[in-house]
């Protein structure tokens, strides 16, 4: 593993841009949150566009009746002919009657509901009084005028924090919706190291919700949880600052930071992680042979860009040209920026046309971007990695580190295989 760079990117001047963005809104997070929380229903109060987004972002429709839906605002709701609150109460009652298994209902604000100032927090209070305690009704905004893609999960988790019970116990809280397999691996590693008790936010079911207090120590597993971090601090809990558990290095550093907070030294961590870490490094090496020396450009999307750039530059030998994120939380991303050697442009926000000009000028070997841009860039002879796959695939901790590297190597390997008959073979042959 490379050692710490003399000069990290924490002090690099940030290029801030503002213009057309090519990103999802926060509603998209519902796609994975509704699978993670098995007794929750997400009711978007919005327009036909919101419903269409959820359907399209899911790509293929989920076979069973999903635990999300959209209460579509109609002309009469806007013209004041119908009391929007009365309409909402009726739809919620109907929904809960049909789905008696639901214990948590999230009213999710959208662009239209924000613009017409429909007060969903009051609606949530009112509906909690009607349907509680069997059903807890919370609200958050996934609107595109306030949230970008993964910020929807942040807003959702932040909305849960004030309602969590109190405790004085010293416990570790692992924050972020992880795939079940990853969560189980993380809990197992922490147990072996001797950290405990460990709770998770979000929990799989409402009755497993963690309690919070001044002795709670929490570690984020996702780099986009700024509001949740602030909400936990308001409850008196204390953050454990660490790089994120991506790759062998990131996972080890994350575990060591957590262990230190629980009075356990790095030797114990090294002992526990020796075998999985060696496996991870071996698996990463297989993909790194494809990635080494290749130049990568991150368009802003999931806020995973900075930790992933750290992983790809330090563990896979890639060179980052530009690392762009929708929002840069210096306190959350700081430990990551310290590890990235100076060189790449660090940018926040987006003007997509200007950024595409930079992509075309620098012709990276791999561009990480949203689905709207991937095929057009491929058609220009530029290999891409869809950013959305990074939040739909288990990529955290040791056993997934090789898969994470593989996600970036696959488009390059595929391009090499198809080089002879690729429509842009002149460029692909370079």
């Amino acid at each position: 593993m490379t050692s710490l760079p003399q000069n990290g990117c924490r002090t690099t001047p940030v290029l801030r841009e503002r213009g057309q963005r090519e990103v999802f809104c926060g509603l998209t997070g519902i796609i994975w949150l509704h699978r993670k929380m098995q007794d929750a229903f997400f009711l978007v109060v919005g327009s036909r566009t919101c419903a269409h987004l959820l359907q399209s972002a899911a790509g293929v429709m989920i076979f069973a009746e999903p635990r999300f839906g959209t209460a579509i605002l109609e002309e009469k709701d806007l013209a004041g002919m119908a009391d929007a609150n009365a309409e909402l109460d009726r739809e919620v009652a109907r929904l809960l009657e049909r789905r008696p298994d639901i214990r948590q209902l999230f009213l999710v604000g959208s662009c239209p509901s924000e613009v017409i100032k429909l007060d969903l927090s009051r609606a949530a209070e009112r509906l909690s009084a009607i349907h509680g305690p069997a059903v807890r009704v919370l609200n958050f905004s996934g609107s595109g005028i306030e949230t970008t893609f993964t910020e929807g999960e942040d807003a959702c988790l932040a909305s849960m924090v004030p309602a969590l019970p109190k405790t004085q116990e010293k416990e570790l809280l692992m924050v972020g919706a992880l795939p079940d397999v990853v969560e189980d691996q993380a809990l197992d590693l922490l147990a072996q190291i001797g950290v405990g008790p460990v709770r998770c936010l979000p929990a799989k079911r409402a009755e497993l919700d963690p309690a919070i207090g001044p002795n709670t120590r929490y570690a984020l597993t996702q780099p986009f949880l700024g509001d949740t971090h602030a909400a936990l601090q308001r409850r008196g809990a204390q953050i454990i600052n660490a790089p994120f558990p991506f790759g062998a290095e990131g996972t080890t550093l994350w575990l060591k930071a957590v262990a230190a907070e629980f009075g356990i030294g790095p030797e114990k961590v090294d002992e526990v992680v020796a075998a999985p870490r060696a496996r991870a490094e071996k698996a990463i090496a297989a993909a790194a042979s494809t990635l080494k020396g290749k130049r990568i450009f991150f368009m802003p999307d999931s806020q995973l860009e900075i930790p992933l750039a750290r992983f790809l530059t330090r563990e896979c030998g890639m060179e980052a040209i530009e690392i762009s994120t929708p929002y840069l939380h210096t306190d959350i991303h700081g430990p990551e920026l310290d590890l990235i050697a100076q060189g790449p442009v660090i940018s926040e926000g987006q003007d997509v046309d200007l950024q595409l000009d930079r992509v075309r000028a620098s012709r990276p070997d791999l561009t990480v971007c949203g689905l709207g841009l991937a095929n057009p860039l491929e058609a220009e002879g530029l290999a891409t990695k869809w950013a959305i796959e990074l939040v739909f695939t288990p990529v955290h901790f040791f056993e997934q580190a090789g898969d994470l590297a593989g996600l970036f190597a696959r488009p390059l390997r595929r391009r090499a295989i198809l080089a002879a008959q690729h429509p842009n073979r002149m460029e692909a042959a370079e």
Partner: protein
Amino acid sequence: MKLAVWTYEGPPHVGAMRVATGMRDLHMVLHAPQGDTYADLLFTMIERRDHRPPVSYTTFQARDLGADTAGLFMQSARDAHERFKPEALLVTASCTAELIQDDPGGLAETMGLPVPVIPLELPSYQRKENFGCDEAFLQLCRALARPMERTARVTCNILGPTALGFRHRDDLQEITGLLSEMGIEVNVAAPMGASPSDIARMGQAHFNVLLYPETAESAARWLERDHGQPFTKTIPIGAIATRAFIEEVRALSGSTLPVDESRLRMPWWAASVDSTYLTGKRVFLFGDGTHVMAAAKVARDEMGFEVCGMGCYNREQARPLRALAKEFGLTALITDDYLEVERAIEEAAPEMILGTQMERHIGKRLGIPCAVISAPVHVQDFPARFSPQMGFEGANVLFDTWVHPLVMGLEEHLLAMFREDFEFHDEAGPSHHGHKAQIRDLGVPVAPAAAAEGGSTPPTAALPSADNVIWLTCAERELKKIPFFVRGKARRNTEKFASEKGLHEISVDTLYEAKAHYAR
């Protein structure tokens, strides 16, 4: 407020995007927040387009709302014109921008851009995607089409194909070829493939061919009124309709050239003995009005199916669809509520569904085979091969596509003869499909007492049924031998029969008496 789980149509601005994205040298400025850019991926992923849709989103945020969203719009319009140099600019608002009432059309007018600027009013809280297509294309025609002298030779325009349309790419190619055989050149095909300057010269054509009323009927009517161009009313889906379409085109154009039918295989494929098993298969149709109406006729008159239900999600086509359904002795289902469609299909218990990707999911849930005949589209609806729905090749494609999901003739007989074979049974699915066959557990759960008495009495479990009619074990076991796709119907019919006869128990005899009673 209405709860939606899945939607058949997107919002109207997505319809306008389908028009803009199908065209060349046109750009659209959409006043919208950042999340609305998801619509780009519909085109680049589902349709595998190699260019971004020609759409600039103004990307306003919450903090702009109290400030200058109008200024943001004007900046975006200026930048878009500067960067893309389009021949014309469409300007409109998405659902959120409609609420802040910046009036993109009025703003753009004050900017003095050197190209035609066409504003679109798209009421997002009343209308949907198809309206957006239809309205965008109408406004483009109204703004750009100029009165022009007719071409010396007989030509026509083709109206309707858009980006993200169900097989529009291939229908356009097939119908262009058919018209060429008849000696008729296509003046302009629009929106797909046309530029604003092509729209300007649409008036040169002698008549219009309207392929998709959903996306272009308003434009066809306007061109008829303002440019004196009649348009075709027949949708050439199926062999019969294609021949009727040819006659209609002959009447409009005076063409007398013969059309070669040698590549039309569908009528013989349907008439050959192998297809006998298709006779009277009960099919349920759902999709957009145009495709459902055309498919219903093909299903009945060219495939020999029995249509047991039909409906559409676009209210604009409700009237003609209701009339056609009546002709079929049915009541049309007009709804955009996916759950209502699912209930109707469950109730009708068809042997096959001809529907959209949504019905494909319903079919999967209910264990009913489904072929897709209409938008909304999915990446699978954009095959690499030529696969039209229209014209003679389209008829061939319909035959193949509709037969493919079914269990084949002799295979079906074998299933009926030996229903209790553990590895070759109806729940295993058609043998030419790739998924793993389900090995059936043969242990029919029978209470020991009932088994000892040969299963005649007493009932093992009172199955939920109307008027507390009880199924005897033997009858229940016999019911399981009926193919699964008609089992629900058989159960309900038998229960209805029993309660009408005042019976409280259903025996094997009752089951077969009911079968004879309801025999078609």
